[in-house]
C-alpha cells in the first residue's frame, strides 16, 4: 500500500491561483470572440495576480513556523510568501503595461496565459526546497518566458530574442542540472536540508565533487539572475522582447532567481559558506563592473536598462554574499523598489515606443518630460531611484546592502559598490537630462498618429503604481523591513 504525502493546498495557493488564471485566459482563445479577447485575457490575468498576492499574504500570515510540505518538496515559509508577493505584484503591473501594447491579436489570449504561468513558475520556484523542484520550477518559468519573448513576430528582433534566450538559458539550465547531479552524487540527498546534513555527517565540506557541483549550481542560477559573466544574453533579449515582457522579466525573474539563490546557498551549503560567499562577491563585482561600464556607452534606452539590471543584480548579490540576517533583509527589501522601478521605467519606454513607433534612444527622449509630465517625472524618479537617491526606496536598499557587506567585514565590497553607484549616476542622470533639459525640436521625429500622442490610461496607471511603490518604499521602510526581517529570519 502506498501512502501518498499530505498535500498542503494552502501552501500552493499562490501558484495555483496563477495556474488557474492562465488556464482560464487560455480558454479565452477559443471561447471568447476575437474583439473581447484582449480585455478578457488582461482581466483574468490581473485577477490571477491579485489572487496570488492575497494568497501569498495569507500564507505569510499563517506560516510563522517554516516547514516543508508535500513530501518536503517545497517549503512553506515567509521567505517564499514574501517573494511570491513581490513577483505577483510585478506581474500585476506588467499586465497593466501590456494592456495597450500594439501586439497582433492572434495570440493575445495565449500571451496572458503564459504571463500568468510564468508568474506561477516563479512563485513555485521561490518555495522550492529540493534540487528537483528547483530545476522544474526554473524550467517552468523559463519555457514560458522563451515563448513570451518570441511571441510578437511582427516586432523586429522578437523571434531572435526568444531563440537567443532559449539557447543561452538552456545552457544555463544544463549547467544547473549537471551541478545538481554532482551534488547529489557527493551527498546522496536532494532536499536542501538533507544535503547540509549529509555534508556535516560525512565530513564532505571541501569535497571536490561537492564543490564542483556547487560552482555549477551558482553558475546556472547566475544565468537566470543575469549576473556577469553569465549576462551576455541580457541586452539582446531585453531589447528584442516586447517591452512589457522585458519589464516583467527584469523584475520578477530576478526576484525569483535571487531569492532562490539565497535559499539554496544558505540552507544546502552552510559548510561551504567561506567558498560561496567569496564566489558570489566576485560575481557581484563583475556584474557591477560590466553592467555599469557597458551602460555608459549605450544609446538605446532598453539596452541601457538591461545593463543597469545587470549592475543591480550585482548590488543584490552583495546582500547574498554577506550571508547574514542583515543581508537577507537587504535583499528582500531591495527587491521591492527595484521591481517597481524596473517595471515602471520599461513601461515608460513602452509608451514612448508606441508614440514614435521606433526604438527609444536617449536622443529621442528629448523633451518627453515636458510633453508627458506624468511619465517624464515618473521616469526621472525611477532613474534617481536606480542611482540610489534619497526619497526613493533605492536609497534605503543600497544603504542596507552596504550595511550588510560591512557587517560581514567586507569593506572592499562596499567601496566597489559605492564606486559603481558613482559611475551609474552618469547614465541615469543622462536620461533625466534628455527628458527635461533638451528641446524636442532637436528631434526630427513626430508622433506616428500625428496630433496629440495616444492617451493610455492603463499604462499610466501602471506607471503611477510603480511610482507609488518606489517612493512609498522610502517612507514605509519600517513595515517593509519588518516583513523582510521575518522572511529572512527563516534562514538565519
Amino acid at each position, binding site marked *: 500500500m502506498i501512502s*501518498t504525502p499530505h498535500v498542503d493546498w494552502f501552501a500552493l495557493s499562490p501558484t495555483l491561483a496563477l495556474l488557474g488564471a492562465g488556464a482560464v485566459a487560455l480558454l479565452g482563445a477559443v471561447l471568447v470572440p476575437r474583439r473581447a479577447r484582449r480585455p478578457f485575457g488582461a482581466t483574468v490575468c490581473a485577477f490571477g495576480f491579485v489572487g496570488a498576492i492575497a494568497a501569498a499574504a495569507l500564507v505569510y500570515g499563517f506560516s510563522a513556523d517554516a516547514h516543508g510540505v508535500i*513530501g518536503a518538496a517545497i517549503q512553506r515559509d515567509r521567505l517564499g510568501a514574501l517573494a511570491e508577493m513581490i513577483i505577483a505584484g510585478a506581474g500585476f503591473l506588467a499586465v497593466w503595461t501590456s494592456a495597450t501594447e500594439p501586439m497582433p491579436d492572434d*495570440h493575445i489570449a495565449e500571451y496572458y496565459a503564459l504571463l500568468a504561468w510564468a508568474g506561477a513558475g516563479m512563485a513555485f520556484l521561490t518555495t522550492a526546497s529540493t534540487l528537483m523542484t528547483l530545476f522544474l520550477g526554473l*524550467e517552468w518559468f523559463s519555457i514560458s518566458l522563451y515563448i513570451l519573448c518570441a511571441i510578437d513576430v511582427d516586432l523586429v528582433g522578437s523571434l531572435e530574442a526568444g531563440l537567443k534566450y532559449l539557447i543561452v538559458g538552456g545552457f544555463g539550465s544544463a549547467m544547473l542540472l549537471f551541478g545538481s547531479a554532482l551534488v547529489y552524487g*557527493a551527498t546522496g540527498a536532494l532536499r536542501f536540508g538533507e544535503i547540509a546534513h549529509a555534508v556535516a555527517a560525512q565530513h564532505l565540506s571541501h569535497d*571536490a565533487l561537492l564543490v564542483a557541483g556547487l560552482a555549477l549550481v551558482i553558475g546556472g542560477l547566475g544565468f537566470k539572475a543575469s549576473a556577469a559573466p553569465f549576462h551576455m544574453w541580457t541586452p539582446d533579449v531585453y531589447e528584442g522582447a516586447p517591452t512589457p515582457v522585458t519589464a516583467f522579466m527584469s523584475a520578477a525573474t530576478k526576484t525569483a532567481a535571487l531569492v532562490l539563490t539565497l535559499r539554496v546557498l544558505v540552507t544546502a551549503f552552510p559548510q561551504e559558506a567561506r567558498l560561496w560567499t567569496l564566489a558570489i562577491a566576485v560575481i557581484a563585482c563583475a556584474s557591477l563592473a560590466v553592467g555599469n561600464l557597458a551602460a555608459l556607452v549605450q544609446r538605446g534606452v532598453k539596452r541601457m536598462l538591461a545593463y543597469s539590471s545587470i549592475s543591480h543584480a550585482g548590488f543584490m548579490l552583495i546582500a547574498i554574499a554577506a550571508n547574514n540576517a542583515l543581508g537577507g533583509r537587504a535583499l528582500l527589501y531591495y527587491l521591492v523598489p527595484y521591481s517597481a522601478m524596473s517595471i515602471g521605467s520599461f513601461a515608460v519606454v513602452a509608451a514612448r515606443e508606441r508614440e514614435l513607433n521606433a526604438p527609444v534612444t536617449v536622443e529621442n527622449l528629448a523633451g518627453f518630460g515636458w510633453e508627458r509630465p506624468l511619465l517624464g517625472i515618473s521616469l526621472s524618479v525611477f532613474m534617481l531611484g536606480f542611482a540610489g537617491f534619497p526619497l526613493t526606496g533605492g536609497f534605503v536598499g543600497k544603504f542596507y546592502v552596504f550595511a550588510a557587506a560591512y557587517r560581514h567585514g567586507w569593506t572592499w565590497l562596499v567601496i566597489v559598490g559605492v564606486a559603481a553607484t558613482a559611475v551609474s549616476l552618469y547614465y541615469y542622470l543622462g536620461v533625466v537630462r534628455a527628458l527635461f533639459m533638451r528641446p524636442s525640436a532637436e528631434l526630427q521625429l513626430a508622433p506616428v498618429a500625428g496630433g496629440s500622442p495616444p492617451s493610455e490610461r492603463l499604462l499610466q496607471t501602471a506607471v503611477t503604481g510603480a511610482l507609488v511603490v518606489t517612493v512609498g518604499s522610502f517612507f514605509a521602510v519600517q513595515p517593509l523591513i519588518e516583513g523582510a526581517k521575518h522572511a529572512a529570519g527563516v534562514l538565519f
Partner: protein
Amino acid sequence: MAGNILVWIVWVVAALACLGSGIAVITFSNPFYSALSLIGNLASLAVLYLLLSAEFVAAAQVLVYAGAVMVMFLFVIAYLGGRADAPWAGGPSWQALGAVAASAALLVEVIVVIGLKSSGRLSHSARVDFFYGRPYEIGRLFLTDHLLAFEITSIVLLIAAVGGVILGSHSRETQ
C-alpha cells in the same frame, strides 16, 4: 574479476560512443545525420543506465526517446527539408576559440574532480537491493517522495506544448 573487466569494457565503449555521438549531433551540417547520431547517443546512454542497474529507465529511454521522439524528429526534418546553414562558414573566430578553451578547462576540471580527487569514495559501488530500479519502486517514488515534482513535470510539458503551438502557427501565417 572477469565480470568487472567486462563491465569496464562495456562502460568505456558506451561512454566513448555517448561522447562521440554527442559531438556528431552538433557537428553534422545535415540535420538528418544529426538526428541519426542522436539515436546513437540515446542508445549508448541506455547502456550506461543498464550498467547502473536501472533497467526500467534504460528500456523507457529506448522506447520513448530513441523510438517515439526520434520518429517525430525525423518527420519534422522530412517536412522542413534537410537544408541548413554550414556551421563553420565564417572560419574560426576568437569566440569559437574561447568557447573551445573554456570547455576544455571545464573538461579538465571534471576529470580532475571525478577521476582524481574523489577516487576514494567513488571506487566502491553503492549497495543496491533487489527492488532498486524496478518499475514498482519508481512508481512508488513518483507517488510519494517526488509527487509534486512528478505533477509539476506535466505542467512544464503542457506549457511547452502550448508554446510549440503558438510558435508553429506563427510560421504558418508567414508562409
